[in-house]
């Protein structure tokens, strides 16, 4: 090994970090951990809010669907009643027509 290399080694030899370095690092990790806990809490709260909003919207949608189904059924009943009435009127109309147009057939 040359003198130059020895000088380089000497100039780059290990140096001790300032006093309390390890404690500073460990304190910062505790801060990170605390910050992370707070972040998780906020995340949990935000998730709960999103879940509640989602559930509310889901229930509202289900209610709306149920109301739609009910309205549809009512409409179908109305159509059935109307159809029956129309058929009844048609039958009466046919009977009158037979009497008026073809009286010889109905003495």
């Amino acid at each position: 090994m040359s003198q130059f290399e020895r000088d380089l080694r000497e100039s780059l030899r290990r140096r001790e970090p300032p006093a309390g370095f390890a404690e500073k690092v460990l304190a910062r990790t505790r801060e990170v951990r605390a910050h992370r806990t707070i972040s998780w809490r906020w995340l949990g709260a935000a998730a709960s809010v999103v879940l509640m909003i989602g559930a509310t919207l889901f229930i509202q949608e289900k209610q709306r669907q149920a109301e739609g189904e009910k309205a549809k059924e009512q409409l179908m009943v109305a159509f059935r009643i109307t159809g029956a009435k129309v058929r009844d009127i048609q039958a009466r109309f046919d009977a009158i027509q037979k009497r008026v147009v073809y009286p010889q057939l109905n003495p």
Partner: protein
Amino acid sequence: MTKTEFETAVREYQGMVYSIACSFFHNPAIAEEVAQDVFLRLYEGHRSVEAGAHCMAWLRRSTVHRCIDMVRRSSYQNEIQMETLPDIPVGAPETDPLLQEHLRRMIAALPEKSRAVLVLRFGEDMDVEEIGRTLQMPANTVWSHLQRGTAAIREKLMRRMKENENEPVRTRSS
């Protein structure tokens, strides 16, 4: 790595991490900042790092890469210009602290890759293959950086010493 092992690693390798950063920047404040940052990164990913040799290699690699990143992203790269370094006293003894200081500043003024190679070679006593693995570069490239870095420092030292020898002695009255 458990939390206890992390704490042990901080105490065990703080000197190594700090020394690499300090040799890189020749600035204790920046070195401390980098070293703390590296240990925080280890803390973030401590579950994937095994204690012992793996942790030491991880720390070395992370420290050097963090230093290189910092040099590239900031103005530290041009903080020390070789031309602005103070003159070396002629006939300085081999263990002269001024010469050591001068060498440290010269190393800190090298391009980041050459600087990293020199710090790992002479500071961490790693061989070319190990440095290649740490810096993820072929051994030939490491060798080339090593040669270039040492040659630059050697040339600068010689030139400064010659300039000092030729310079007339100045007195207060002149």
